[in-house]
């Protein structure tokens, strides 16, 4: 048998990498995060049938298949100029809510949760999924797995294998919801609501009751006064499946509201030589470097941004939680990055309640779930709120419906500039010189872990762990220290 020794230097590609540059006095001059990316999507998509895009795009990401599938499906509606029947829209939203719940549950308890539930400076060996189970109890561990399984089974029933859904079609969905399946959605929603209430109580007991954590969440190291973007319904309430995009300024006032189709008028991309990721910013404000404030076009997406960008939640229990959130943290908007974890749980509860409302709607079992497209395809742009934030798909085709251009703007791209701000600020506040202890380094990582960023295909990370390389260099580039984090 060949023994493979892992040399940190040879395995950099495919992993997140934090670079920290320190000056002569030991203070951090600047720091940034590199995220690897799957390459070649545009070329890969060219010449394919547009109808295949919801399946193809769901296959490029093992973490968010349903988000890509749904964004792709909505883009096909636009491309083929077809409006799905009301029942189809409800079915899509109900299934999508199931996905939001199971993904948020995974993140809070097993990926981001260890920082809070176990503690940011707890020994590394305990700061993982087992540590979380140790702290909250075996039953909760089983419950997380049980709720997720129930929801994933329903998603499979409604639309085929969760990894490769054959659910959404241009103009609707592939099959109606049977009364039996509807009943299971009703039961799962009730179960998920209880789980959501319980999860919020865990957050109150473990985080809010601990002044040290509250101080950490509200500390300047994790605060940026930026713009926020999210989908809202007609009443300006958070919605994950559909609506208008609303942007609020750093004071929480509505700055913009636009349809997905117009995203190119409002969102532009800034390129940096050190990053594979393009940094999205608000065109109307302009790129003003990696800074926050009203004159910088840097914005955020994802749970905290969605709550900030909306006037409330669409369901009663989540609305109560929304009000508690803003009253506890000093009013809307909240600029504390780490509050994203709390916002994520409020969304979990909201998605569970909303799923229940849709499942109870008599129209959900209507057989009328498809409008057959008849028009020639041209250009399609679609949007959903992925768990990690706003996700745009944009396809253009020839008259036969073959893709001539395809572009995706994923949540991590929308968030990239603010993530860069977060890493830089946390490193400056927490790191002093090349000798950094484990706990401090973890606190730097927490600055981006809250966003739940997608690390290309490297998102396949160990529960509770993030494969990562930290390099600490002098300003002239000399490498002082490499720390492997996995």
């Amino acid at each position, binding site marked *: 048998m060949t023994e493979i020794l892992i040399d940190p230097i040879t395995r950099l590609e495919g992993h997140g990498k934090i670079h920290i540059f320190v000056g002569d006095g030991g203070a951090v001059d600047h720091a940034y995060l590199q995220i690897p990316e799957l390459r070649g999507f545009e070329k890969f998509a060219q010449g394919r049938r547009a109808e295949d895009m919801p399946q193809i795009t769901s296959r490029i990401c*093992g973490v968010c298949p349903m988000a890509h599938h749904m964004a792709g499906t909505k883009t096909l509606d636009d491309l083929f100029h077809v409006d799905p029947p009301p029942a189809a829209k409800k079915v899509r939203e109900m299934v999508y809510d199931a996905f939001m719940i199971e993904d948020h549950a995974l993140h809070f308890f097993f990926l981001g949760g260890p920082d809070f539930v176990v503690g940011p400076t707890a020994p590394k060996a305990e700061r993982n999924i087992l540590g979380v189970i140790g702290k909250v109890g075996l039953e909760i561990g089983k419950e997380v797995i049980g709720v997720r399984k129930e929801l994933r089974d329903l998603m499979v029933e409604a639309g085929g294998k969760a990894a490769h859904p054959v659910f959404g079609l241009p103009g609707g969905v592939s099959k109606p919801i049977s009364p039996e399946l509807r009943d299971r959605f009703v039961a799962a929603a009730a179960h998920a609501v209880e789980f959501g209430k319980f999860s919020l109580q865990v957050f109150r007991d473990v985080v809010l009751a601990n002044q040290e954590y509250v101080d950490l969440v509200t500390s300047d190291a994790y605060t940026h006064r930026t713009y926020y973007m999210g989908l809202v319904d007609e009443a300006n309430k958070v919605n994950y499946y559909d609506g208008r995009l609303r942007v609020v300024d750093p004071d929480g006032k509505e700055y913009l509201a636009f349809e997905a189709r117009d995203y190119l008028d409002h969102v532009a991309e800034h390129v940096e030589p050190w990053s594979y990721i393009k940094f999205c910013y608000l065109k109307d404000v302009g790129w003003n470097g990696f800074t926050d404030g009203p004159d910088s076009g840097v914005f955020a997406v994802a749970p905290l941004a969605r709550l900030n960008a909306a006037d409330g939640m669409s369901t009663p229990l989540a609305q109560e939680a929304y009000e508690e959130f803003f009253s506890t943290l000093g009013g809307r908007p909240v600029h504390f990055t780490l509050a994203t974890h709390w916002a994520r749980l409020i969304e979990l509860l909201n998605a569970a309640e909303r799923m229940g409302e849709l499942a109870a709607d008599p129209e959900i079992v209507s057989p009328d779930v498809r409008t057959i497209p008849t028009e020639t395809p041209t250009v399609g742009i679609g949007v959903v709120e992925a768990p990690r934030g706003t996700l745009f798909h944009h396809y253009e085709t020839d008259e036969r419906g073959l893709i001539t251009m395809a572009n995706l703007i994923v949540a991590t791209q929308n968030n990239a500039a603010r993530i860069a701000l977060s890493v830089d600020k946390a490193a400056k506040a927490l790191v002093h010189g090349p000798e950094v202890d484990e706990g401090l380094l973890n606190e730097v990582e927490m600055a981006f872990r809250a966003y739940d960023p997608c690390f*290309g295909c490297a998102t396949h990370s*160990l529960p509770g762990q993030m494969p990562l390389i930290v390099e600490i260099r002098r300003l002239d580039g000399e490498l002082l220290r490499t720390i492997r984090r996995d």
Partner: protein
Amino acid sequence: MSGTLLLGLGNDVAGDDAIGPLVARALLVELEDVAEVVESSASGLALLEVLAGHDRAVVVDAVVTGRVPPGTITEMGLDEVGEVVAPSVHQAGLPELAAVAERLGLTFPSRTRVLAVEVVDPWTLGAGLSEPVARALDEVVARVRTLIRSWEEEAACTTTTLSRPSSPG
């Protein structure tokens, strides 16, 4: 549910990352009577859901270590995985999953073999397999077949042995 799981990990449209799914696909029909064959690009806890309920598992995955030539197949048991799985783009974290399964009282494969194939480029969509990895495909398939067949024979022998006392004569 089958006692044996063949799990081909990877993204079937991302260059060399397809090696795991391609091995699963090659054996899907041939092994259908003796194993559940699954391809997946999931990770972490989602993999726990795939692995749970099986007694034995063969996992095929792509790794980038840069320490051995592309196409090299490294076979490991669960206890050897720790350090080696880390460079995989899937970060399967099998030892952690086994520990979680044990804590939660879930059935988890007591015998696991991981075949890690050193790859060149698992990040370019639509690129297909690189030449050295394409050359290794048949060997990986053959090794997985041999492994699962040998488990079946072992299981058959065990059954025979156990049934002997009750047989007449």
